[in-house]
């Protein structure tokens, strides 16, 4: 029997949740105060994901850094791979919110998109 300890992020209560697992399957969830805690715990022990946000370089625009986000949640163990995949990217202005800056981050199939508009014609 494997035991996983989690802090629920649903509210400031921050329940300490214990998940008992056997052969990769959840057997029991304890410590949560409400159903949201159980839902969170199940997701967190089976397929934890995060919305990764970062930035890339941008040339020919009015600013030099473009903020970006993963269009879908990224598996937790791929966060660093995605962040690293963004490091070598430099896009050219103009850019619109939602424009794809990276089609497939680190083999996840998840695209990264711009979260800010950049006008062209700047000197940066």
């Amino acid at each position, binding site marked *: 029997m494997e035991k996983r300890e989690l*802090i*629920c*992020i*649903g*509210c*400031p*209560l*921050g329940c300490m949740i214990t998940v008992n697992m056997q052969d990769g399957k959840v057997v029991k969830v304890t410590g949560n*105060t409400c159903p949201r805690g159980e839902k969170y715990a199940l997701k967190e022990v089976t397929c934890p994901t*995060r*919305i*990764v*946000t*970062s*930035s890339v*370089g941008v040339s020919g625009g009015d*600013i*030099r*850094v473009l*903020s*970006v*986000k993963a269009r879908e949640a990224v598996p*937790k163990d791929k*966060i*660093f791979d995605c*962040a690293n995949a963004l490091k070598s990217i430099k896009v050219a202005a103009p850019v619109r*919110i939602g424009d794809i800056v990276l089609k497939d981050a680190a083999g996840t199939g998840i695209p990264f998109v711009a*979260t*800010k*508009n950049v006008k062209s014609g700047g000197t940066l």
Partner: protein
Amino acid sequence: MMKSYEIVIIGGGPAGLAAALEAKESGVDSILILERDRELGGILNQCIHNGFGLHTFKEELTGPEYAYRFIEKVLEEKIEYKLNTMVMDITQSKIVTYMNKTEGLVHIQAESIILAMGCRERPRGALNIPGFRPAGIFSAGTAQRLVNMEGYMPGREVVILGSGDIGLIMARRLTLEGAHVKVVAEIMPYSGGLKRNIVQCLDDFGIPLRLSHTIVDIRGVDRVEGVTIAQVDEHMKPIPGTEEDYDCDTILLSVGLIPENELSNKINVQMNAVTSGPVVNESLETNIEGVFACGNVLHVHDLVDYVSEEAALAGKNAAKYVLGKFDGQEAPAHTVTLEAVDGVRYTVPKTVNIGRMADTVKVRFRVGNVFKDSYVSVYYDDERVLHRKKMIMAPGEMEDITLDRKRLQEYPDLKKITVKIERE
């Protein structure tokens, strides 16, 4: 002749933008937003993480995306704004003096002023940390701007003092950019940051959070070379023998935010010692007639959604003021004072004129401690009229109650509304 505007809004961040839009919506066309930065959007421009707008737009946006939802409308509505423009002075007769590179020093006449200057970070000087003054010590927000907007890394080996949300967010951000965040020290026995940020910004990356710890020494003369942190006792005094050394080249401070009220003070706006923001009435108007306040300059918020909502109210009321709708249409003035006691640190607003209030008025407040299974209670003079159970209340999460005009009108002799926390 001096140029004049009906409403001048100081600050083009989330509060200023929402106030401008609502003022325009309410029928005022002569509006000017004055913004000191190079773009509209304020602090949201550097908050590139997601989680904004869940209340307002029912989706999680990043800071720049949330800001753009408002900026887009300001552009559509052709609301006038000036960038790179610093307001130098305001007077009680509502003359606003601003300065920028193209116009120089300019005086304009406003009929109404909305204060939306936001807040700034508590600096090192306010903390009494001993040691030299080497390079490498940044406020968390400064580091955030450097990384997310200017494209510079402040350092490689990082220690963070204070577990406010900006510090937590920056722990993750710097880690993703290749820095090594060694520890986050928090002087309080609990973190002021959201649980979600503790888990997703620290735990996800194995960054330790040391509660009841603070920095007692900073090493390095030209550049930070290391820090010593120590455990503190219940009086927040370092406990000898608990010192631990960390080598680092950078220290981030995430130790609180202070509303930026230098301009408010110039016209003697009455201030609340708890919030460090103006005392306002139900219309978010200060003691100076026609001067309104909203957003972080009024009291520091944790959710931008609440800033937008509050600022829209300030914009609506400023519009009412300049359109002359504040007088004549309302019932006779009947002003009651709100008192914050027993665990409630303050309320915004501080007074309510029942004759002038909208159908409902939201009263926002913060508690001074962590309360579990307790009640928010509201008293009209000595009569308890609300007793609402809350599983958890914490200093980091703003609370609110709603006042209803019809109900208040049933109490013609009411003098005082008390908001308090009760155990049962």
